């Protein structure tokens, strides 16, 4: 859905649901959630609302999680090399 919004610049629940395997009602519910957390912005457009992605907010949210993920990647690499060093030491002693 965010992909579609980004690709098309904007969309309404009707236009988005036409391209997704879900109902317009389901799309509307998700858009409301995204709106409340600030990932999309909307303006009234007749009986519907036009939605577009708040790119700065989206980038911030993902950057935050990516950076936590890469910190864990580094820790897991250290866990791996520690464990493998211990295992090698254990085997040499035998």
């Amino acid at each position, binding site marked *: *859905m*965010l*992909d579609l919004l*980004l690709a098309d610049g904007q969309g309404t629940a009707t236009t988005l649901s036409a391209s997704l395997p*879900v109902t317009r009602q*389901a799309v509307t*519910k*998700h858009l409301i*959630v995204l709106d*409340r*957390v*600030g990932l999309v912005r909307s303006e009234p457009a007749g009986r519907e609302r036009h939605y577009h*992605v708040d*790119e700065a907010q*989206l*980038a911030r*949210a*993902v*950057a*935050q*999680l*990516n950076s*936590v*993920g890469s910190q*864990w*990647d580094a*820790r*897991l690499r*250290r*866990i*791996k090399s*520690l*464990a*493998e060093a*211990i*295992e090698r030491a*254990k085997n040499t002693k035998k």
Partner: protein
Amino acid sequence: MELGSIDRELFIDAAPEVVFEVVSAPEYIRQWWSAETEYEPVAGATAQLTWTDEQTGEKESTPFTVVEVDRPRTFSFRWTYDEDSLAAQGNSLLVTFTLVPTGTGTTLRFTETGYRERGWEAAVLEEYYNDHTSGWDLFLPRLAETARRVTV
């Protein structure tokens, strides 16, 4: 990537008993997490993780509670909750290491959950969470990809 959790899996060429020791023992946590800590690896044990900034000497701590110890299969703990509260679902991040014997080595599965509740515009998301789990699952995995395009 699913925004509610971080999941990783890696193969380690060491026996599960060794890997378990490395992920759960304070002496090794000091090495791979650069955090000073002291606790008995038993469920319910609480401790502090303390990091010292090498340049300024400033210390930063976070509480830590062991949740499950099933040697050498599962080790899990909660962290990043307020000092004066007990670790529980909704106020902390839950880290789980699961070890699966694989040939002569170990497959280590890592998950960290709790972001949806805590880390990221959390209260609102939590309110909607139960209703929307399947919906988030449908479109959130694409966020990372999308965001890369946005930031480039």
